[in-house]
């Protein structure tokens, strides 16, 4: 269980030396003394591309360590976490939908989802079918991931992301290739899942943001 994620004077190493520029000073997260994601929050992070959205999520997910400053889960610096703890966090505390989705092109849609769900045992086959149905890709269940359009792949990746219990879900440009109708369905699904677990939602975008109800907008 993670109640809050605290970020202190965080800055990607590639931005080193830019601390005093107008852009960094305007940022609500980079180099800020204390920025906190609370459990139950609903945040849309907006930024121009190349401004480190994906880096931020990679840092929080323990996937990259090329930053200065610190990130802490309930006051524990994440740099101190071991392999076992990270595996627990990734299967039961924090869900991530990476921008590049990271689906396995040589597996089918259902296999891609099962790779995650087999690990967590979170969803029943019927629940997965229901999600695929709501997102309009139930007929693609046995299709190879490589044969899907980017929009379809995004929807598969969203189903896979919610196949685990979480305290926070981070979505990196989840609807960049979806129309408004699908955007609303995705937002609805994510909010349902988050509400059921009192979890926080953090979604990034460069423009087409996830249509959450009453989100807080933060600019990176």
């Amino acid at each position: 269980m993670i109640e809050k994620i605290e970020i202190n004077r965080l800055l990607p190493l590639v931005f080193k030396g830019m601390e005093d520029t107008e852009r960094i000073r305007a940022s609500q997260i980079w180099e800020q003394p204390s920025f906190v994601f609370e459990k139950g929050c609903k945040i849309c992070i907006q930024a121009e591309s190349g401004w480190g959205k994906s880096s931020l999520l990679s840092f929080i997910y323990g996937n990259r360590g090329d930053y200065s400053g610190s990130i802490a889960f309930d006051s524990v610096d994440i740099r101190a976490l071991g392999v076992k703890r990270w595996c627990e966090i990734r299967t039961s505390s924090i869900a991530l939908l990476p921008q590049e989705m990271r689906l396995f092109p040589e597996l089918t849609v259902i296999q891609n989802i099962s790779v995650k769900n087999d690990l967590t045992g979170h969803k029943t086959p019927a629940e997965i079918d229901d999600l695929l149905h709501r997102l309009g890709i139930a007929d693609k269940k046995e299709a190879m991931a490589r044969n899907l359009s980017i929009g379809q792949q995004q929807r598969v990746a969203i189903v896979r992301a919610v196949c685990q219990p979480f305290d926070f879900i981070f979505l990196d440009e989840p609807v960049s290739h979806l129309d408004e109708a699908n955007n609303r369905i995705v937002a609805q699904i994510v909010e349902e899942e988050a509400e059921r677990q009192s979890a926080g939602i953090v979604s990034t975008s460069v423009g087409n943001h996830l249509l959450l109800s009453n989100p807080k907008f933060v600019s990176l």
Partner: protein
Amino acid sequence: MKSNRNIWSLLKRNISKGQLAGYILSNIVGLTVVLAGIMFYVDSNSGGEDDDQFFSRDYIVLSKKVEGLGFKPAVFSQADIAKLERQPWAKRVGEFTSSQFAVKGSLSMGGREMSSYMFFESVPDDFFDVKPQEWAFDPEDGFVPIIVSKDYLALYNFGFAMPQGLPQVSEELVGMVPIKLQLAGAAHCPETFNAAIVGFSSRLNTIAVPQEFMDWANARYAGAGDNPDPSRLIVQVDRLAGADIDAYLQAEGIEAAGDQSSQGNISKFLSTASVVVTTNGLLISVLAVFILILSIFLLLQKSKGKIRSLMLLGYSPREISSYYERIVISVNLIVTIVAVAAAVIFRRVWAEPLSEIGLGGASALPIAISALAYLLIVTAINIVVIRRYVMKIWNNG
């Protein structure tokens, strides 16, 4: 750890079947050569100890150097013998017992009688390379079996008979010649015994009678308690210690007789051959293991993206490693089983020639142990390589 079919089919795709087949094939060849080499070494070092076909390769006959005219008898004291027995290369030591009585042997051929004074020696029966059926003595019976050196017959046939125009004789013919022995000593009046040459030894350069006859006759004719120190010893030696033996004998002023050098050469050749073969096999195996490690690196390198994705989904490095570990365990198991089978089949090639010289038939245990050791060591190396590389991927390497 539970196996996930999806992960399996995901990671399996990057396995290069060609590389894997190359590894399996080259390693089977290498390991087979190693095992066959070890097997050959073990076989050429073992022989039926209680066999009639005793191969006289491991024996040397020792005597003290005679200095000057030699009034002081050159004999081995009990201390000398005890010291010799303590040498790591001396497996068994046998004493020669000399006859302490007078022997006159006579034989009649075509009405003509020939006679000569002679002597006997005996060694414990275990040290003979031949053991004829008649090799026993019973005072009631009064028959004395004799074994003489093969060299004596050769000396007569090729050195004496041919130039003199006399007929050459075979071992069987010599055995048929009846010999009369007259034994006499201080303790008993002369008696006559029947005797015959029942065998020819290529190990013992003497005229040998059974130990039981010698003990009986020495007591009867020379008087009880007259049991002098032996002047010659027969020693079963560890052939691998040739240099140690030479150094010891030189230091102790002992001379070695017999054809130890040529026998040593045969055994040295067999040992060297198996060492060369085993070394070559090891070299092939080591190269094959390098191929496997290289293949593992390439495989993990190719799968790096997938492995990172799995890690982001929450799979632990240990869990991911386990899939690769299963591959190497199966592959090494196949290699080991096939190589053991091949080595056992190869064994037939040398089993017969070796058994003809009284060798072979060793237990296959050393092969089983070597194969198991190979399996464990190589698999352990593979697993360490896999785990380290997967951990490197976790650390974003």
